């Protein structure tokens, strides 16, 4: 029998949910480990960087890399894994589109560090200590950690990526399908997202209640409002379904979207369908055009915008790094990024 292919798992700036997703395969993980050898998975097993370095180039059949690329350390590791792997799969929303951590791109990185370590209400840091990339102890011992990069990046903004597994976290049926496809060599063209490209609405159980013409009068928070079981957007609860690809739903449950099944609007973790340049703008367009107000009712439109509050955070929750302008501040008004929109119009 031919030797089983080697795979690697690695995490960058991530919450660990994607690792959890692999563990969540439960007994199915036995099928996976029967079929492959795990050569690198520092989260779960005791591996060192040298375990990768000593392997020849292209040794791993596939590397699954999750998390946003946030630092020079992440960059170094993914570049190493790229050299050592035949295929690289961006695993989960963060490596696919930047994910939630890349929302920091809307701010200056130093402000983010300052806020996280000194200013949050739960922070107790009387000396104002923040982590340094390099520290020399008076005894002479020197230690280095990592340098945060100015922006968080999706994996394909740093290395060449072969396939994308979307989702926060990736649902297990997609993981299994992907592993089996890789093992059998039955793969779609390079650069494909391994999930259907149709919009989420197409498989939504509430699809039938989606009106022909949206007439949104008000914006509601789903945790503060009564849900009548119809289309969330029609009810005024922002659901990213129209700008998000499907595939999160378990085929055993009619592919019904995960969040909708538990009465939550979609947050857009699967990213936009193929051909959409910018998920957030697509969604902004969908919500704005679905409002039932004319230009004469400008005050109402302002009220709606104010009620949504954080537009970028709502529409780009998972895709800031892959937005058209990467969420990179252009420098104007950087100090007041989430200010309530100004009055005024055409």
């Amino acid at each position, binding site marked *: 029998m031919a030797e089983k292919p080697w795979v690697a798992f690695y995490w960058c700036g991530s919450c660990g949910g994607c690792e959890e997703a692999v563990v969540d395969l439960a007994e199915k993980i036995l099928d996976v480990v029967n079929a492959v050898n795990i050569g690198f998975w520092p989260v779960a097993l005791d591996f060192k960087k040298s375990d990768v370095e000593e392997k020849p180039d292209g040794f791993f059949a596939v590397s699954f890399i999750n998390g946003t690329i946030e630092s020079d350390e992440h960059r170094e590791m993914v570049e190493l894994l790229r050299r050592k792997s035949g295929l690289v799969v961006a695993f989960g929303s963060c490596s696919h589109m930047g994910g939630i951590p890349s929302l920091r791109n809307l701010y200056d990185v130093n402000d983010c560090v300052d806020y996280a370590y000194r200013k949050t209400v739960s922070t107790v840091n009387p000396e104002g200590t923040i982590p340094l990339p390099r520290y020399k102890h008076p005894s002479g011992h020197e230690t280095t950690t990592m340098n945060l990069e100015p922006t968080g990046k999706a994996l394909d903004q740093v290395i060449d990526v072969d396939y994308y597994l979307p989702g926060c976290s990736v649902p297990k049926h997609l993981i299994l399908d992907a592993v089996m496809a890789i093992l059998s060599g039955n793969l779609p063209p390079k650069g494909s997202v391994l999930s259907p490209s149709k919009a989420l609405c197409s498989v939504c159980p509430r699809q039938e209640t989606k009106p022909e013409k949206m007439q949104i009068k008000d914006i509601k928070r789903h945790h503060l409002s009564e849900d009548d079981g119809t289309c969330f957007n029609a009810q005024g609860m922002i659901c990213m379904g129209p700008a998000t690809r499907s595939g999160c739903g378990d085929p055993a449950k009619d592919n019904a979207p995960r969040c909708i099944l538990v009465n939550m609007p979609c947050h857009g973790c699967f990213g936009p369908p193929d051909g959409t340049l910018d998920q957030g703008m697509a969604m902004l367009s969908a919500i704005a055009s679905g409002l039932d107000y004319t230009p004469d009712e400008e005050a109402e439109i302002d009220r709606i915008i104010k009620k949504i509050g954080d537009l970028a955070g709502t529409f780009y929750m998972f895709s800031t790094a892959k937005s*058209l302008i990467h969420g990179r501040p252009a420098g104007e008004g950087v100090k007041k990024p989430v200010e309530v929109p100004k009055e005024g119009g055409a």
Partner: protein
Amino acid sequence: MYEPKIVAFFCNWCTYTGADLAGVSRMQYAPNVRIIRVMCSGRVDPELVMKAFAEGADGVLIGGCHPGDCHYQSGNHKTFRRYKFLKAILPQYGLDPERLHLEWISASEGDKVRDTVNSFTEKIRNLGPSTVRETLNALRTEEVSHG
């Protein structure tokens, strides 16, 4: 000397025809606008506006029919709402919302085309060049070029 680059999306039925009128009337206006004719201002997807900024536009001008005059009934109503949303999201991206402007200009208002283009160009001139393209280029050199 900095010359603003302005991308203008003009609707076929009103503003573009108004620009034609300005032309045949030999009105002079700032040459900074690059006019793109669209069938309706409702065709101006917010993606297109962002793409214009990403590609280096210093300002984006949208011209549509007056409310009530839309050739497609309510296309410009949608434009207006998207415009309001865009104005609100631009500051989060560190862009001055003044860089985006919407004006209702009918087919008979050639002089309004001239005045709008001139005043918007002046406004953008005073705001200075947009740094989006520069920062994106810097970002791309940080990124490995591939594919």
